[in-house]
C-alpha cells in the first residue's frame, strides 16, 4: 500500500512526476541563464534597441491590461450572472484565442482592421490607420490576452455566488451600487490574478504582433520580436534579452502573489 508522505496526505509516488514536471520547466530556464555572456550582459540589455523594445513591451502590455479590464470585467459578469440561449457557444468563441495559434489571430485581425479588411475602409474614411502603429500592437495583445481575464474572473464570480448581492439589493441598493460595493470587492483577488495573467500574456505576445503590426524599433518591435530578430545576427544579445523577459515575467507574477497573499 502506498505510504502517505508526511503531513500532506498524498501518496509518496506523486512527488516523482511532480518533481520531473517542475524540472522540465525550470531546467531550460537555468540552461539559458548559463549561456548568458555576463561580461557583456549590461551592454547588451542596455543598448538603444533593447531599451526601446523593453519600454514598448511594458507600455503596450500595460495598455492591454487596462483594455482587458475595461472589456473583460463586463464580459465575465454577463457570462457568470446571466443565462441565455447560445451562452455556451458564445463562451467558447470568446475563449477561442486561448487555443488559437497567435499568428492566426494576427491574420484574422489583418482581415478585420487592415487597410482592405472588413472595417479597414470605414476606418480609413475616418482617418484612422491602424496597420504598422503601436495601436495595432495593443490590439494584437488584447486579442490574445482578453480570454485570460474573462476566464479567471468568471471563475471567481461563480465561486463567490450571488447571495451577498441579493441581500444588498433587498436592502435597497441599486444594481450599480451592488456591483461597486459588493461584487467587485468580493472578486478582487480573481480580478487581480486575471489582470496579471493578461499582462504576462501580452508581454510574451509574438505571432499576432508580427503578422498584424509589423516590426519597427520603438513603434511596433516589442521585446519578443527584438529577441527573434537578434537571433539572426547576435545570439548573445538574444539570450541576454530572453533572460530579461524571464525576469520581468517572474517579477510580475511574484508581485501578484504578494498582492493576493496580502488580501487573503
Amino acid at each position, binding site marked *: 500500500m502506498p505510504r502517505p508522505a508526511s503531513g500532506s496526505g498524498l501518496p509518496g509516488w506523486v512527488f516523482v512526476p511532480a518533481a520531473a514536471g517542475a524540472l522540465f*520547466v525550470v531546467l531550460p530556464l537555468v540552461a539559458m541563464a548559463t549561456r548568458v555572456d555576463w561580461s557583456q550582459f549590461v551592454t547588451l540589455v542596455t543598448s538603444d534597441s533593447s531599451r526601446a523594445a523593453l519600454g514598448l513591451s511594458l507600455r503596450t502590455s500595460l495598455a492591454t491590461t487596462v483594455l482587458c479590464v475595461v472589456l473583460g470585467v463586463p464580459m465575465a459578469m454577463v457570462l457568470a450572472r446571466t443565462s441565455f440561449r447560445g451562452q455556451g457557444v458564445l463562451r467558447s468563441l470568446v475563449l477561442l484565442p*486561448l*487555443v488559437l*495559434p*497567435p499568428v492566426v489571430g494576427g491574420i484574422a485581425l*489583418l482581415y478585420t482592421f*487592415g*487597410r*482592405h479588411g472588413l472595417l479597414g475602409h470605414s476606418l480609413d474614411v475616418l482617418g484612422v490607420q491602424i*496597420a*504598422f502603429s503601436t495601436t495595432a500592437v495593443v490590439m494584437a495583445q488584447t486579442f*490574445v490576452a482578453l*480570454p*485570460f481575464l474573462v*476566464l*479567471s474572473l*468568471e*471563475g*471567481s464570480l*461563480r*465561486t463567490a455566488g450571488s447571495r451577498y448581492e441579493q441581500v444588498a439589493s433587498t436592502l435597497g441598493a441599486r444594481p450599480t451600487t451592488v456591483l461597486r460595493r459588493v461584487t467587485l470587492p468580493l472578486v478582487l483577488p*480573481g480580478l487581480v*490574478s*486575471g489582470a496579471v*495573467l493578461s499582462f*504576462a*500574456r501580452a508581454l*510574451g*505576445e*509574438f*505571432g499576432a504582433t*508580427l*503578422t498584424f503590426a*509589423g*516590426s*519597427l*524599433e520603438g513603434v*511596433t*518591435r516589442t521585446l*519578443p*520580436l527584438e529577441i*527573434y*530578430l*537578434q*537571433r*539572426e*545576427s*547576435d*545570439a548573445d544579445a538574444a539570450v541576454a534579452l530572453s533572460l530579461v523577459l524571464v525576469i520581468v515575467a517572474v517579477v510580475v507574477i511574484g508581485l501578484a502573489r504578494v498582492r493576493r497573499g496580502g488580501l487573503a
Partner: protein
Amino acid sequence: MRKRLAAIAAVALIASLAACGGSDDPSDDASAGSPDETTLTVYAAASLKSTFTELGKDFEADHDGVKVTFNFAGSSDLVSQLQSGAPADVFASADQNNMDKAIADKLVEGAPVFFASNTLQIVVPAGNPAGVRNLGDLADPEVKTVVCAPEVPCGAAAVKVEDASGVDIQAVSEEQSVTDVLNKVVTGEADAGLVYVTDVLAAGDKVEGIYFPESDGVVNSYPIAPLADSKEADLAAQFVELVLGDVGQKVLTDARFARP
C-alpha cells in the same frame, strides 16, 4: 471551480507562450524512409525552395534508392542548427556571411562555390495603388514601404542600396524575412517593399515587380558546399555538381536567379 479555471488558464498561458515563434525542428525528417533507402539531407536558404525541390526530384530520379530531404529556412537559422549538431550533408546559403560562420566552425568540407546570385526589386501590390515608379518614391513617407531588417540578408542588401543611391527609405516596418515583407504587400497593407527578383516571380499575380537601376550594384551571391560531418560524402558532392551543372543552372535561371 475557480481553482480549476485558474489551472486551465495557467496551462493555456504556458502552452501559448511556448507556441510563439521558433521554427520547426526538421532533424526528424532525416530518419524517414525505408531502411534500404539512403537519405541525403540538404539545408538550403528559404529563397531556394522551389528550385531546389525540383533539383531534388531530378537527383532522386538519377539515383536509385536515394531520397533527398530538405530543410528550407533563413540562412542564419540553418547555420545555428548546423552549429548545434543537426545532421546534414549539403548547405546552400543565401549569403557569404552565413557560409563564413559555417566555415569558421569547420562544418564545411572543402571550399564553398557560388552557384547563383540575386538582386533586389521593388514589389508593389497588383495595380500599384500608390503609383510607385522608382527607388526615390520609397523615400516619400506617404508611400507605406516595408523592408527586411538590417540583421537579415535581404535587409543588409536594402541598406547597401540605400547607401549607394543616397535614397533614405521611410520604412513603416522592418520585417524578419522576405516572406513577411511579401505578405504585407500581397495583403495590400503596404504600398511597396524591397525583396529579391526571384521572390517577386514566385509571388505570382498578386504583386508586380519594378526594376530599379540602383539594384545592379548590390548583388547577393549564393554559396554551396558539402558538409564535413556528412555520411554520404559522394552523394553530397554529386548534388553540389548537379546544382553547378547545366541542369541546375537552367532551373535556377528559369526562376530568375542570375549566374554567380
